[in-house]
């Protein structure tokens, strides 16, 4: 699968602070890629470098097969960008915003635009500066999707949105995904927001990409394991590296297995801890996997 976004050793320094450090990532074409990381991990900085809004200090990135520093009007007309930090022209009404944006895009789809306006329940005549945060996000999404971009870049699009608005937002994206050949890159600090959407996950921590993998692969290799040690039994001194966050309360031991295989997983645990009892192995949601990884990265510091 070819990459629609590719970065190589991308770095960005703000004074003494290295916000992004040797960030190398590939976003497969056609995927819905979630770039996850805690607040301050460097997600927004990466996205701004990809969109040529800020320059990298080192390294390079390509978007739609063009160097990010050379992104021009042709490429921008194929990218839809929504960010919580983006300024919308507040003095315009939604109708004026649509009228302003439409002539810039040869691929503008009037029917889709009308459908999105109905779906998001946007008041056409009201000025944007009077909008709530949720309405502003929906207006931004409207003028980022109505021209059917090849690549949609969403930077923390759900921040401050209530559950209902968030659900409408995600439903809108999902409905369009079913009908449109596009790639979506969504940066978020909360996987809850994007779990329904994504098929590929990247985890960024302290400016570096720690993981990039398909959601299916992650879900197949991560398991929450729990067992009881036999009376007098002890855990081996050296546990496998793939066992994340091992913890024990009395004789009860729990950990996250990050290299689980259906055919050999249980046998492997029994080999490492002979004589264990009540072994339970449970599948993990993407949210649980993300939390386990984040806690593990924090424990490494």
């Amino acid at each position, binding site marked *: 699968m070819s990459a629609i976004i590719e970065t190589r050793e991308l770095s960005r320094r703000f004074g003494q602070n290295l916000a992004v450090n040797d960030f190398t990532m590939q976003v497969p074409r056609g995927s819905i890629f979630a770039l996850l990381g805690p607040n301050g991990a460097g997600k927004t900085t990466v996205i701004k470098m990809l969109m040529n809004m800020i320059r990298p200090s080192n390294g390079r990135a390509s978007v739609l097969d063009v160097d990010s520093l050379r992104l021009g009007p042709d490429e921008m007309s194929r990218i839809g960008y929504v960010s919580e930090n*983006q300024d919308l022209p507040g003095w315009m009404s939604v109708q004026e915003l649509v009228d302003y944006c439409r002539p810039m895009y040869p691929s503008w789809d009037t029917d889709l635009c009308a459908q999105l306006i109905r779906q998001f329940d946007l008041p056409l005549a009201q000025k944007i500066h009077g909008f709530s945060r949720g309405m502003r996000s929906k207006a931004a999404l409207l003028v980022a999707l109505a021209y059917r971009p090849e690549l949609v870049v969403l930077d923390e699009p759900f921040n401050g949105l209530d559950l209902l608005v968030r659900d409408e937002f995600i439903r809108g994206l999902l409905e369009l995904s079913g009908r449109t050949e596009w790639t979506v890159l969504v940066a978020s600090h909360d996987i809850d927001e994007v779990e329904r959407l994504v098929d590929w996950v990247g985890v960024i921590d302290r400016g570096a990409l720690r993981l990039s993998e398909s959601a299916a692969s992650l879900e197949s290799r991560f398991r929450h394991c729990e067992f009881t040690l036999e009376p007098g039994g002890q855990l081996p001194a050296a546990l496998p590296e793939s066992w994340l966050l091992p913890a024990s309360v009395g004789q009860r031991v729990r950990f996250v297995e990050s290299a689980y295989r259906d055919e050999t997983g249980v046998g492997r645990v029994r080999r490492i801890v002979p004589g264990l009892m009540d072994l339970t192995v449970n599948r993990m949601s993407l949210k649980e996997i993300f939390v386990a990884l984040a806690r593990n990265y924090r424990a490494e510091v």
Partner: protein
Amino acid sequence: MNLIFHILRKDFHHVRLILCVWYLLLTLAAALQAKSDLLLGEDAELSKVPVQDKEVVMAVFFLAVLAAVLELSLRATVVSKLIHDDSVVGSTAFWLSRPVSGSKLLASKALFLALTLVLPAMLVRLLVFSQFVGANSTSRHDLLAEVVSAAVLMTLAVLTPSLARMAFLGGIMAGVTCSGLLFLSWLAIPAVDGQELGRLFTDELPWLLVLAVCGVAICNQYLTRRTARSTIMAFTGIPLFLLLMSRHWFQGAI
């Protein structure tokens, strides 16, 4: 070209009301200045005005100054609205995520300023002064001043994200320039008298230099969005401007 006019139309829609108020104030300020010039006479000396007319002349002069200050403030507000709406500082402006290049945005903004600020200001000045003072009362220098003021305001706007910051940067630049000028005039004493100081502002070369420096800083900012570099470029113009301004004072000494 279509995109340039498309952005221009959007900008006109945005600032049309404040622009109308500015046109009124511009006309009023020009009329008051012309009247004040007429009352004060060619020498612009209050001592030569008959005693019974002095109060009227003073009142007109005061109103002319007030109107000029208000007009300049409103002009700065129009430029700020125009430029800061599509800011070239920072990374959050709406246009950055749209298929708009910096060069087209610059062309649109410059065209807008030329058509709605510089040209009307020149026309008002020409019409009002020819009506009150005489047919040839507006010099080439007065018209150049209109272009320079628009260029300076645009430069301040493209280097800042808001009207407040724009005023702050303008204050710093004006402060540095005035301090430099005072220092140079102090160095050149006794060569500098009142007449020499008056000549400073009719010499066109320094103002052409200001125009060139503003042009370079504005183009650099729109094409590269490297604000620190553009600001340095703008500040580099100050010593060059001062040198050109004060060159006559030191000609004898050299």
